[in-house]
């Protein structure tokens, strides 16, 4: 099963502490060594982003920052895992890492299954 992890936080979390960056680097290495992470990436700030929107039959492109967004997606990772529990466990560890190395950081990891044929298979 494939899972997309979306890491969300307030718009300006400030620069991450060095300890956190080190721990992240180590975690990334471990994730690669676990053979389950297919892809990952950090995203540019909202201020540098553009939102292309369809509303009332009108397609418009609006440059960031967007005043209405309280939480933004700062990064993502794609995993191939055996169960949702495994995904949740991974996300918990990721949040524990923030708790330990980035005091005061608040945010969330959204765990979303990428639907494949097995998602429609009653056996699984």
């Amino acid at each position, binding site marked *: 099963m494939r899972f997309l992890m979306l890491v969300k936080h307030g718009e300006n979390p400030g620069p991450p502490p060095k300890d956190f960056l080190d721990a992240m680097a180590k975690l990334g*290495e471990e994730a*690669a*060594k*676990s*053979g*389950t992470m*297919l*892809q990952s990436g950090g995203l540019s700030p909202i201020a540098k982003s553009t939102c292309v929107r369809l509303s009332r039959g009108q397609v418009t492109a609006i440059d960031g920052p967007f005043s209405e967004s309280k939480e933004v997606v700062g990064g993502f990772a*794609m995993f*191939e895992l*055996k*169960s949702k*529990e*495994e995904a*949740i*466990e*991974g996300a918990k*560890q990721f949040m*524990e890492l923030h708790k330990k190395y980035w005091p005061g950081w608040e945010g969330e990891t959204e765990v979303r299954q990428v639907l*494949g*044929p*097995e998602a429609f*298979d009653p*056996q*699984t």
Partner: protein
Amino acid sequence: MVLSVVVTTTDTHRAIDAVWRIESARIIAGLTRIVRDVGLAEELAQDALVAALQQWPESGVPDNPGAWLMATAKHRAIDHFRRNTLLERKHQELGRELEAKQEMALEDLHTAIDDEVGDDLLRLIFISCHPVLSTEARVALTLRLLGGLTTEEIARAFLAPEPTIAQRIVRAKRTLADERVPFEVPRGSELAARLSSVLEVIYLVFNEGYSATAGDDWMRPALCEEALRLCRILAELAPKEPEVHGLVALMEIQASRSRARTGASGEPILLLDQNRALWDQLLIRRGLAALERAEKLGGALGPYALQAAITACHARARLPQETDWPRMVTLYEELAQLTPSPIVELNRAVAVAMAYGPAAGLQIIDTLVSEPSLKAYHLLPSVRGDFLFKLGRLSEAQAEFQRAASLTRNAREREFLLDRARACSESQSNSGSR
């Protein structure tokens, strides 16, 4: 209220399953280095798992469940050492030197077990795939120790009775202990042979899953993912081995087609007829990147990397007609030199026919007709029939398709081949009546 407790317990058990799958291989690997016995290491790790199953439903899952399991297993290992030391003291007179060693071993245990685990994992892979074990035993032990699969899951995946698999694993562990197989990463001239044993096991697991059809038990396709995961781990642990990246590339690219290779009713769809929009581009990209890693390490490509390079020719083509067949011919020539086999020749003939026309392909395939190992292989007459058909030699083609149909054990394929045979006779009678 009762119901909610039950639900919580089940949730905890599912969380424990997940933690076990994530952590078990590393825990077993770390313990094996200390106790020098894979079987004992697995038992100790299992003890820790049982402790978690008893405690976590009440105490909740700890913040760092992996560390908790490791610490618990470590204590069990120390208890085991102590017990054994006491036993030995009782039963025989121990020299002071040996006693001191035992004490030191206990001291070391605390620090050693917390060391870098990567090397241990690599050692565990090598010991699970040790040539002293039968191929079947290597596969079962690898899935059990490194994949964290239960005996039941392995049995389901290989369509074998559970006791058979359980016994296979028990015997494998005993053999490793009896033969005193060292827990180490082989070096020098031994490394190549041992590595090829590991890769063989991984690719076998992959193919076991890949050859299953869509209607099969979900555990069989899961074997593909398991094999890929293992090989990706191996690629990180042994990054300088081109064949490891070669096998990763081969499997990533093959796996990228899994959604396209069967039709709605489970019928196989040949590569050139597949809907390429269904190919998994993320896996293709990963596969091509792994192939590039293999190539960048330099030297001539090994058999896995060559096969990966061949599949990459398909993966890079957005349409079948964009396939770089001449390159594929070259790659098959290299593969034939490295691992000569009638099957490779047959594949080379197909590539040659695609690149330079059916007559050139037929020339190669005609040299294989008398090959004893291909006597009952349906793809030989099937491919030969295809070349003859394209050359307009219809009655010969018809005979080949019929022969192929009589050789295949797959009902769907037989139907397909008989259809092709009928098409030959129809075009013959059409051209005759004209």
